[in-house]
């Protein structure tokens, strides 16, 4: 007794599941996220530079913001000294979003891409949408 067809069926299921990510995408193309920085505020800047380097911000912005909330609310410290010595107001709404006033085009572009859903916007207000949630 071999139960051959059962084994082959099982293996077929196995192969289908394991190769699902490949088979689902075969022949298709994917769009890379392109966060836009073409807001008026940024256009005004001479050197288009965030408070820290681009790579650093891409990797670490969440930790930065997470530490900011404690600095501001709990310690009353509201001046961020960047690596290049420049000073910034510690505020998501009043610093970050002043430049990046295009949340959909900037934040969401990548967040949706990697399926990250930060809860910042439960309280903090996205710029310009101005309306209700």
């Amino acid at each position, binding site marked *: 007794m071999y139960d051959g067809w059962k084994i082959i069926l099982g293996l077929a299921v196995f192969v289908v599941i394991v190769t699902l990510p490949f088979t689902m995408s075969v022949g298709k193309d994917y769009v890379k996220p392109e966060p836009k920085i073409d807001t008026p505020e940024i256009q005004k800047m001479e050197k288009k530079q965030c408070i820290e380097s681009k790579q650093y911000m891409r*990797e670490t912005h969440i930790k930065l913001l997470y*530490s900011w909330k404690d600095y501001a*609310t709990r310690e*009353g*410290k*509201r001046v961020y000294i960047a690596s290049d010595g420049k000073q910034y107001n510690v505020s998501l709404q009043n610093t970050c979003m002043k430049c990046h006033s295009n949340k959909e085009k900037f934040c969401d572009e990548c967040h949706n891409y990697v399926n990250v859903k930060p809860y910042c916007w439960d*309280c903090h207000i996205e*710029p310009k949408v101005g309306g209700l*949630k």
Partner: protein
Amino acid sequence: MISRRDFLKISAFASLIGLGGAISINALEKKPGKNVLKDINALKGKRWAMAIDTRKFKTQEDFEKVIRACHKNHNVPEIANPLHEVKWIWTDDYEHSFPGTAEHYISKDIKERKFLLLCNHCDNAPCTRVCPVKATFKREDGITMQDMHRCIGCKFCMAGCPYGARNYNFLPPRDYIKELNPEYPTRTLGVVEKCTFCNQRIDKGLLPYCVEASEGKIIFGDLFDMNSEIRKVLSENIVIRRKVELGTQPMVFYII
């Protein structure tokens, strides 16, 4: 069972891994920025206090200006039902602002006067004592601060506060804000909020919204500073505070 030698070997091994782990976490962890500091312009005080000159508040508009300044800027939702409303600063009459005092025989003027009520920023605040997560805590400058990021919504502080100054978000707040102030966040369902003496403004060297809007009817200052204006008005006027007998040391004084 495991022999002594084995045990020593294993514990050495384990501590090696633990140490290695700790070092590598420290080495790999990316620390944000260079430093975060206090603003040099920030108002400096050791014990912020407020004196409300109740004599100067004459018209309804006097109160509303103050309240509107606070509520609009802080995105306080306007909920009609008094059971679930959120208010950082509001008014009540003498009898209910100062219950238990001899209201019957007091002057008619005072009896009919309205009083601005807000968080008293008690020096010995029961709400901070009961909070299980330090979401509400005393800042060094005496502000009874509320960290809305940390609050778990247990409502113990509301039971602890003898002044009814704390608000729980019984309803989704954004549904009840007509116009959002983009400079300040809203709160979310299920956290407690209250007046913070405009800590965000003090940190930047500005006076609280209500003080600003009152145009001199509210005096704000450092109680520990002998030369401050507040010390002056407190020493020159008759002042009362709410429920002093509870020992909470409220920092809001009412000039009558």
